[in-house]
């Protein structure tokens, strides 16, 4: 920092000379701007008007004129008022959406960390398992997701076998019956909420596996970047695998947990399978629902921003950063 300041000073002091030669730092800064220029242009020309418009629309009433074109009428906060007070199911959907988020995010994080640790170990067929686990990342998006949404075939085929892939609606085909497990754990004095959570997680395993592909990749990358020397030192000192995980792997990977938590929250509240998103979509499709859906979407967005800020705040207080000498 001080060096840069000095350099800048010398440059400005050397101004009276005949030719101005930009310092290396300045030239590099200019090159940096050129590299990010495509994004900046796009952001200013395309994205900013889109965001601005969307925000503006939510305060307007839009009427599409027959024969092309549309008229806008300022209605103030009416769309927001409608969504919060008059719409019968928006607030309810929002609450269920938040509940889903609270359930999904820890489940996906736990699962992807566990799988990443497992897939990071040396074993026969590791490449094959990795290839299989990343299939959903590539294939189960967009069209496939909407095809899967109306898929009654899968649940029909497994009725007999009694194995659930998460999309089955029939209660009979759940892997573990909640009742049995609860009865088993009730005598062990473990909270029923926890048991229910675990049971639900197992029953939704297909959904969770489907959505934790990118997180698994990020965790794997993080695990790869931990120096093997640390593990070796641990083994020599006689630490067990369990201790090594909690004392070494977990702190070293904690920045990744932060990244993944944020990514998972963003991902799970923007996917089409999210109940709030589905509701907003259905409002958008309905007649004169376009502006209402955009008001709803903005409220939802603000809420999730708030959640993101809270989660990021809490997590970053506990994140361990390895000090690197650079």
């Amino acid at each position, binding site marked *: 920092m001080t060096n840069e300041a000095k350099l800048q000073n010398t440059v400005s002091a050397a101004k009276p000379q005949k030719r101005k030669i930009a310092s290396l730092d300045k030239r590099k800064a200019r090159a940096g701007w050129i590299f990010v220029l495509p994004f*900046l242009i796009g952001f200013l020309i395309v994205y900013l008007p*889109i965001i601005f418009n969307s925000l503006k629309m939510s305060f307007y009433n839009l009427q599409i004129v027959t024969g092309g074109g549309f008229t806008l009428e300022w209605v103030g906060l009416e769309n927001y008022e409608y969504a919060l007070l008059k719409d019968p199911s928006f607030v309810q959907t929002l609450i269920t959406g938040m509940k889903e988020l609270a359930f999904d995010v820890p489940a996906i994080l736990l699962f992807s960390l566990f799988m990443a640790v497992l897939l990071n170990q040396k074993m026969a067929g590791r490449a094959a398992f990795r290839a299989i686990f990343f299939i959903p990342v590539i294939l189960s998006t967009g069209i496939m997701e909407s095809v899967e949404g109306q*898929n*009654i075939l899968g649940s029909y085929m497994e009725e007999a076998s009694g194995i659930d*892939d998460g999309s089955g609606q029939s209660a009979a085909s759940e892997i573990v019956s909640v009742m049995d497990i609860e009865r088993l754990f009730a005598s062990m004095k473990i909270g029923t909420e926890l048991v229910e959570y675990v049971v639900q997680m197992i029953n939704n395993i297909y959904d969770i596996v489907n959505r934790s592909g990118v997180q698994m990749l990020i965790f794997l990358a993080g695990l790869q970047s931990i120096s093997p020397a640390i593990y070796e030192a641990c083994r020599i000192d006689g630490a067990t695998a369990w201790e090594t995980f909690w004392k070494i792997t977990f702190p070293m990977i904690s920045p*990744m947990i932060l990244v993944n938590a944020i990514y998972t929250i963003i991902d799970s509240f923007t996917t089409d399978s999210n109940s709030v998103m589905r509701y907003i979509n259905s409002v958008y499709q309905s007649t004169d629902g376009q502006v209402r859906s955009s008001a709803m*979407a903005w409220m939802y967005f603000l809420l999730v921003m708030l959640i993101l800020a809270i989660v990021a705040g809490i997590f970053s207080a506990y994140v361990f950063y390895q000090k690197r000498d650079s």
Partner: protein
Amino acid sequence: MDNTTSAPKATITKETKNKIVADFERTPLKERLKAKFLNLYFFQQIAWYIFRLILLIGISYVVLYPFFTKIAGSFMSPEDFVDVTVRLIPKHPTLDIYKAVLTELKYGKAFLNTFIISFSCGVLQTFVCCLIGYGLAKFKFWGNKLVMMLVILTMIVPHQTLQLSMFMQFRYFDIWGILSLLSGHASTGIAALDAVLANIKILPMEDAGFALTNTYAPLLILSATGLAFKNGLYIFLLRQFFNGVPDALEESAYIDGSGTFYTFLVIILPLSVPMMVTVFLFAFCWQWTDDFYTNLFFTTSKIVLMPDVVDIPTSLKTDYAGQNMYYAAIRNTCGLCIIAPLVILYIFCQNFLVQGIERSGLTAE
């Protein structure tokens, strides 16, 4: 047991001038095997190995099962869906569904169009995200952090929020009203001023703004500016990757007289091929199966794309008992046909996917 603890005796004999033969009294094979395999550590290892294998196979099964059901259903004939004894293996296997889907649903056209879009968008996105990621990683300029924040912002705002205004933006494409000003379609709200401005007709336009919907332009514009689907993620991944590339490489190139951009093209890009393949794979596949942007920007059915393929072919329309099930099987088959090219691509590229991420040296700083 004594044999293992006490040192074995060795008899050393001198055979020739330069050769010594040492004969050890080796521990019997049985004892050695006992020591090796009959301990707790070994059993633990075995138990863990089996547990892990079962777990991994189980989850792989969960991942692959939906594909099994889809494939099984795609070979079934209508009779199989009313037959209670048929579950996964069809009694009357036919290729009717495949034939109908591939011939009647314009699959070929959709394939070609989608391939053009996905490939061009994939290449553009990969290159542009590389540029942006490199700029953010390697150059410390004022506003660097701000740009990164903006990138994250584009990732956070759900695209459904922007559905309507994104459609409007490309239906009436304009750069802050400048284009409509130049073509005489300006609307300032003041009638007198509008009348004067209407005389300016530099650009030929019929409406306020260009109608870019129903062309490839919106997707290409979004890709070329790093704003398309999940591009924030790609930029983030690439930035982390470039952070891990040692500065010395570029510095030596600079000293040899190479410019910044030339260095990027000749030194940095060849280094980052695995990562670029990863990003390209994501971009290509997600664009291929995308139905949000394609439904938004392609309102007429003039350009046939993949989402249009998911339909019931007319020759297979029935109204008998197993109809729902049969239609579900047909839709699933459409899905299978759509992802078939991706599966082939994935088989070839999956090595890169893991390698690219593994070597990225990803750290969250």
